[in-house]
């Protein structure tokens, strides 16, 4: 079969453009002004100062605002213009601005070496690596706050923090973790792997992709800026009127959601378009790797659900700044509006945080069981089913709120229906294990743990969806434990599986498997020891986000706290492994360390700038393990690297 390997579009052309000549014209920037992280920081600071000054200037004649102690208009404008300055500094807006004034956007030649990771770059692999660092930073910040929460809960009456500080820590922990979790797989692994897995040379919208990363970082900083502003007391749910009542930190929360929301929409849009339009010849829907299916479903959710959060955040900002009354009951608004908008985004969001995990385990398990993925079509249908149904369940968060009480049986039904497609994933996982010779490498251990943990999370989810049981457990530690089991026990374990599995491809270095196993077992055991007691604590009547609690629950809380510290220590083990394996004592990874048939392992290592010498032609479905005589997954053409041929022969 001949392959029509036409080189796609301008980006390729610009990349092969000769490097800029020495001696520059006055329109070209000198080297120290080239756009990188440093310029972004300068831009953000300048933008903040200008925006804040302008906000104070325009609102100075309104005594209510001027005398209120904190000027929400100045804060909002400061942070918004700061974000704008950040994007200008990194160069994310060069192209659209050039187009605006009628010029052709100028492309810098791709930068080599380390410095490319600190720049706005159109290479999806660099963006993927940037996301790895970004989400780990996010994760660590949230994790430290979690340690602070568990420290406070060691004793019901002796306090480490003031009530005020404590609630701000809780709120910041929730918000940071939730926003991190929406991107933790789609960002690093989705951006890095999707083009490789579908045989594409690039993303559909590389500029939008790079924009999504840099605005994600800006959003992180905006959310974090709540702490210097004095925090916000609303938890990650930000219910009005507490939101309306809260101080200056609330602006960071609302604007942070809007900013990160922009990044989520951009990322989802780009990835969905890429998957739909950039599949290699022969990559039909029924040959799409299951990870790509999960990312497609997630991207659809990101694109469709996030605008609601974005709008909700802006309404809140308008309430705080120009005194509109979207959420103010007394002035004709409704606090229910926020609850509806928030959860209309919020429930699809929890599937944004579950589906990529399912995709990772579906992708990894066949490699270690050496069997095809069981019931591939059921798995894909399950993901699409979960994604669709997730838009019809949001009011189960509001069963006791008094809103639409007669709709409760309906939302109970839709919520419980979601466990059918979720059950598909278990069918797929268990069928894939059936009578296999399983290699328990570190990624596989994390996959098995996902099924263990997510089962508990899923079953307790059915409890929560049942209105009579919900009366007992809503708003308590039971819920808290439930969603940590699904998000941390599911998504985070899957993310770890994905990192151990794909980092050798992404960095060319193996993760140490001995420390990896220690990391896995400590994380698995202490995760369960931390969160399982919380089901009991919740059933015994401890509400969420409390500063003091019943003294008879101290034993269980202490047990949970100590386990949580050890869980935190297991993350240190992970970081030690990361540092050791990547920097201190790197071991070169073989081209295909796990003997995977996946397309992403068949390009050269390190991956060339345009991924494939020739666009591969996909010949068959992706999981034909242990099947003598099966055709190779893809034909990589003449330029096929040696690693591809090795992987191709290992399947016999």
């Amino acid at each position, binding site marked *: 079969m001949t392959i029509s390997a036409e080189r796609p579009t301008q980006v390729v052309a610009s990349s092969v453009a000769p490097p800029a000549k020495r001696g520059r014209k006055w329109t070209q920037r000198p080297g120290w002004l080239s756009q990188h992280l440093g310029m972004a920081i300068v831009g953000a600071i300048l933008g903040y100062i200008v925006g804040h000054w302008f906000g104070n200037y325009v609102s100075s004649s309104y005594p209510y605002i001027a005398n209120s102690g904190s000027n929400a208009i100045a804060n909002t404008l400061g942070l918004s213009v700061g974000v704008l300055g950040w994007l200008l500094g990194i160069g994310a807006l060069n192209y659209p601005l050039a187009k605006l004034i009628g010029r052709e956007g100028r492309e810098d030649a791709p930068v080599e070496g380390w410095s490319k990771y600190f720049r706005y770059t159109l290479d999806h692999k660099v963006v993927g690596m940037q996301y790895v660092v970004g989400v780990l930073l996010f994760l660590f910040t949230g994790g430290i706050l979690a340690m602070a929460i568990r420290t406070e809960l060691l004793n019901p009456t002796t306090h480490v923090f003031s*009530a005020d500080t404590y609630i701000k820590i809780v709120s910041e922990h929730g918000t940071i973790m939730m926003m991190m979790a929406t991107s933790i797989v789609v960002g690093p692994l989705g951006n890095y792997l999707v083009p490789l897995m579908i045989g594409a040379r690039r993303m559909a919208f590389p500029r939008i992709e790079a924009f999504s990363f840099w605005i994600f970082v800006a959003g992180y900083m905006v959310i974090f800026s709540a702490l210097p502003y004095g925090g916000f007391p609303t938890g990650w749910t930000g219910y009005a009127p507490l939101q309306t009542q809260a101080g200056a930190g609330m602006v960071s929360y609302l604007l942070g959601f809007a900013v990160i929301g922009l990044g989520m929409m951009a990322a989802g849009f780009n990835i969905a378009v890429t998957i739909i339009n950039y599949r290699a010849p022969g990559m039909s829907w029924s040959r799409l790797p299951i990870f790509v299916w999960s990312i497609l479903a997630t991207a659809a959710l990101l694109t469709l659900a996030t605008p609601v959060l974005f709008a909700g955040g802006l309404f809140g900002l308008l309430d705080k700044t120009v005194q509109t009354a979207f959420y103010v009951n007394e002035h004709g608004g409704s606090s229910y509006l926020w609850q509806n908008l928030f959860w209309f985004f919020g429930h699809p969001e929890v599937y944004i945080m579950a589906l990529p995990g399912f995709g990772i385990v579906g992708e990894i398990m066949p490699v270690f069981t050496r069997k*095809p993925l069981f019931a591939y079509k059921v798995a894909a249908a399950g993901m699409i089913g979960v994604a669709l149904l997730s838009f019809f369940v949001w009011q189960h968060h509001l069963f006791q*709120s*008094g809103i639409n009480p007669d709709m409760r049986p309906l939302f109970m039904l839709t919520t419980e229906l979601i466990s059918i497609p979720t059950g598909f994933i278990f069918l797929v996982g268990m069928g894939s294990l059936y009578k296999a010779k399983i290699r328990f490498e570190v990624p596989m251990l994390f996959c098995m743990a996902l099924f263990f943990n997510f089962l508990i999370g899923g079953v307790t989810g059915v409890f929560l969806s049942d209105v009579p049981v919900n*009366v007992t457990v809503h*708003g308590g530690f039971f819920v808290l434990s439930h969603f940590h089991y699904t998000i941390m026990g599911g998504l985070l374990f899957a993310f770890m599986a994905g990192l151990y599995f794909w980092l050798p491809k992404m960095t060319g270095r193996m993760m140490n498997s001995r420390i990896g196993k220690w990391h896995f077992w400590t994380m698995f055991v202490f995760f369960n020891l931390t969160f399982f007691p919380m089901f009991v604590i919740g*059933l015994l009547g401890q509400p969420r986000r409390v500063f003091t609690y019943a003294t008879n629950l101290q034993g269980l809380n202490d047990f949970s706290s100590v386990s949580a510290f050890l869980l935190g220590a297991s993350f240190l083990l992970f970081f030690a492994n990361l540092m050791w394996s990547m920097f201190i004592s790197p071991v070169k990874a073989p081209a295909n360390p796990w003997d995977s048939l996946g397309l992403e392992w068949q390009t050269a290592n390190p991956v060339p700038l345009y991924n494939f010498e020739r666009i591969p032609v996909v010949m068959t479905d992706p999981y034909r393990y242990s099947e003598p005589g099966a055709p190779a997954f893809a034909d990589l053409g003449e330029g096929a690297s040696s690693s591809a041929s090795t992987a191709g022969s290992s399947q016999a």
Partner: protein
Amino acid sequence: MTTIWVILSVVADLVFWFAVGPHMPPGRLTETAINNQKTFNVLLVLALPVLIGVWVYLGYAATVWSAKHKDAPESVGGEAARTNRKAQVWWIVITSVVVLFLAGYGSYAVVVEHGSGGGEGPNPVWTPQGAVKAELAAQSGTAQWAPGEDKPLVVQVIGQQWKFTYRYPAFGGFESAQLILPAHATIVFNVTSLDVIHSFWAYQLSVKADANPQVNDVAYTETKQTGNFTVRCSELCGIWHGSMFNYGKVVSQSDFEQWATSTESANAANTKNLPPFAWTYVPDANGTAGGLYPDGTVTPYSPSEVYGSKTPAS
């Protein structure tokens, strides 16, 4: 593997249902508590075999099908490993049947138990007998309650940062920080808030209803015996959310009447200064409680809608 699963599931279910189940929260103080406890137990009895099934399967896979096990089967690919129509159909049928049963059972419980103790908003659809009449009487200021009359008792729960208070319209609308209830009576809680969203969670009564400002959230229960219970706020309402709790008592009907009448007369002077009984209250924008314009330079938005407005705003 199947044998291990069946034995473990049966044992776990029996132990749970007979030994643990009757002690599960929220206890047996009210009709709703008894029913919600039963629903929880039914769900757990269904869940245990699922949990045990998957765990046994994972454990079996991890030991017997491990590459380290000496008799581990060789992985076999091909069509047979890719699909198994029978397994898939059975899986989908069984999960669907379980799910539909649960949804049906849950809906039945909600309707029959008048909302299962959950907040039902200002216009509940599923009401116990006499509740609407009692509500109308409370609204018009003609509510009466006496032991043995078998009439529902209307109690208003007012949440504010950071405490709950209770008004008894059948006894002159006095306001108390104590929640005392008669045994063997239908209680109609009308939950509202003066500031942010709280949630009235009477744990042992198995009642939970969000307290929304300017919304009357109604929840029902029927007390079955005397006893103590805890009230906690279960919706984050600011920094002292964790300290927003108090205790209540279910006492005999005659004790209740005695407490109510004596508190009514003891509080009479205070009750006069309270705003007239209403389903919702809006704190005065210029009042000391802190309105929306604390500097006082702006006229209240709607002077008629102050704390104690007679017209329900919702």
